[in-house]
């Protein structure tokens, strides 16, 4: 469903991604790990063109989204994204945060969008927060709502950019639980994370990135138990 061909990204003279090739299949949970500065966030942000690749092609559901003629807004409706800093809209209530895009972008009926939002909130046990503003919520609650906000667009793939890195330790679990449930329901997910436990438990495939390339990939068992690449070994040695 999502194919990445020879992806390069340069920031002025900093060469961050040096030729990424991979394919993400429907229903697959791909976890991207690697040291800071390895380009994993940049890679993820290229997938929905928040960063425009310098070179290479990305094909999503048969459409080349890197093509100049392509209107990326159409594919972004099908690609949910969750950010490290939550990025909820602070001037709107939780309900407004969730319904805004379905109503304005998909032209969904307001009442219907609300019903969907409430149903999603119930699933994460936060329906009583529908009228609250983001700053009245804890980090964990905010991030769960950010996930729901993306889900309200009924995306085909969810991109997670270090979703638990800005959370207090005691709130990491509640966010990971939501993600685990999502994976169980068969959502296609690309997750950049430092949570090795999550990668191991939920990931169908792990990509280890280092210095702008995928240094090693495989199923979690292979990567975590018997890494072949020296850099993977060194990295896992430090974090596990």
């Amino acid at each position, binding site marked *: 469903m999502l194919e990445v061909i020879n992806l390069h990204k340069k920031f002025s003279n900093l060469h961050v991604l040096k030729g990424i090739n991979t394919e993400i299949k429907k229903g697959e949970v791909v976890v991207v790990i690697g040291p800071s500065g390895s380009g994993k966030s940049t890679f993820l942000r290229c997938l929905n063109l928040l960063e425009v690749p310098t070179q290479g092609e990305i094909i999503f559901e048969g459409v080349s989204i890197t093509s100049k003629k392509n209107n990326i*807004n159409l594919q972004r409706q099908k690609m949910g994204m969750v*950010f490290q800093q939550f990025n909820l809209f602070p001037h709107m209530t939780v309900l407004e945060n969730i319904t805004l895009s379905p109503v304005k972008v998909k032209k969904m009926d307001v009442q219907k969008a609300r019903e969907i939002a409430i149903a999603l909130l119930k699933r994460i046990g936060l329906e009583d927060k529908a009228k609250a503003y983001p700053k009245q919520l804890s980090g964990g609650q905010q991030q769960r709502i950010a996930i729901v906000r993306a889900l309200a667009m009924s995306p085909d793939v969810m991109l997670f950019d270090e979703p638990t890195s800005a959370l207090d330790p005691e709130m990491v679990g509640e966010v990971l639980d939501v993600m685990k449930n999502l994976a169980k329901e068969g959502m296609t997910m690309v997750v950049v994370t430092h949570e090795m436990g999550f990668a191991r438990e939920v990931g169908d495939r792990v990509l280890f990135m280092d210095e702008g390339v995928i240094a090693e990939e495989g199923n979690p068992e292979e990567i975590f138990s018997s890494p072949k690449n020296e850099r993977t070994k060194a990295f896992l040695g430090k974090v596990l």
Partner: protein
Amino acid sequence: MKFAFIKNYYPFFLNGVKNTILLAFFAVLFGVFIGLFFSLMKLSKFKVFKVISSAYIEFIRGTPLMVQIFIIYYGLDRIGIKFPDIPALDPILGVDFADFMAGIITLSINSGAYVAEIIRAGIQAVDTGQMEAARSLGMSYFTAMVYIIIPQAFRNILPALGNEFIVVIKESSIVSVIGIADLMYSTQIIRGITYMPMEPLLVAAAIYFIITFSLSKLLGVFERRLRAGA
């Protein structure tokens, strides 16, 4: 000092106050639209837009309002641009509608340049993650600006914008030089009639202060409301 003249001349003051408020209101209203337009041009990725916007802002900020109003009032007339006169409005304003338009246009264009810079700074102060989140949900740049960025920018800039409103009220006194019967113009008339050099000015100063001070307090309340909201 004697203030007995007020009893006879207060209609002049009232008419002046009415015109000053009308002028300032429309100047602020149009100024905000002009400012928003040019701030978005300045933030655009197209260089032509940036250059046009910067040229406008720099020119307006770098020349006196007095010069600008003369250019608009005499200059435009010279090159054949005339504002339509609406005679029906003349008695209400106590001044030629076309002249009044010249005043409003000058003040709007002038204020627009300052507002453009205020709004630009306000937009840039909104966290970049907000735009990214909005775009990642499929919103166009325009939709994201309207629903996500500008409302947050507006909240940030409210104090600076309020300050600009107050400046416009005071600066609007310059239109008296082209004969628009605003508060300052009326004051001058009263000074002429009564031969009192000082007292009418004190009354005018008091009125200006009452207007700006009330506005300042009002904006303070509005600001606190917004802050309480979220």
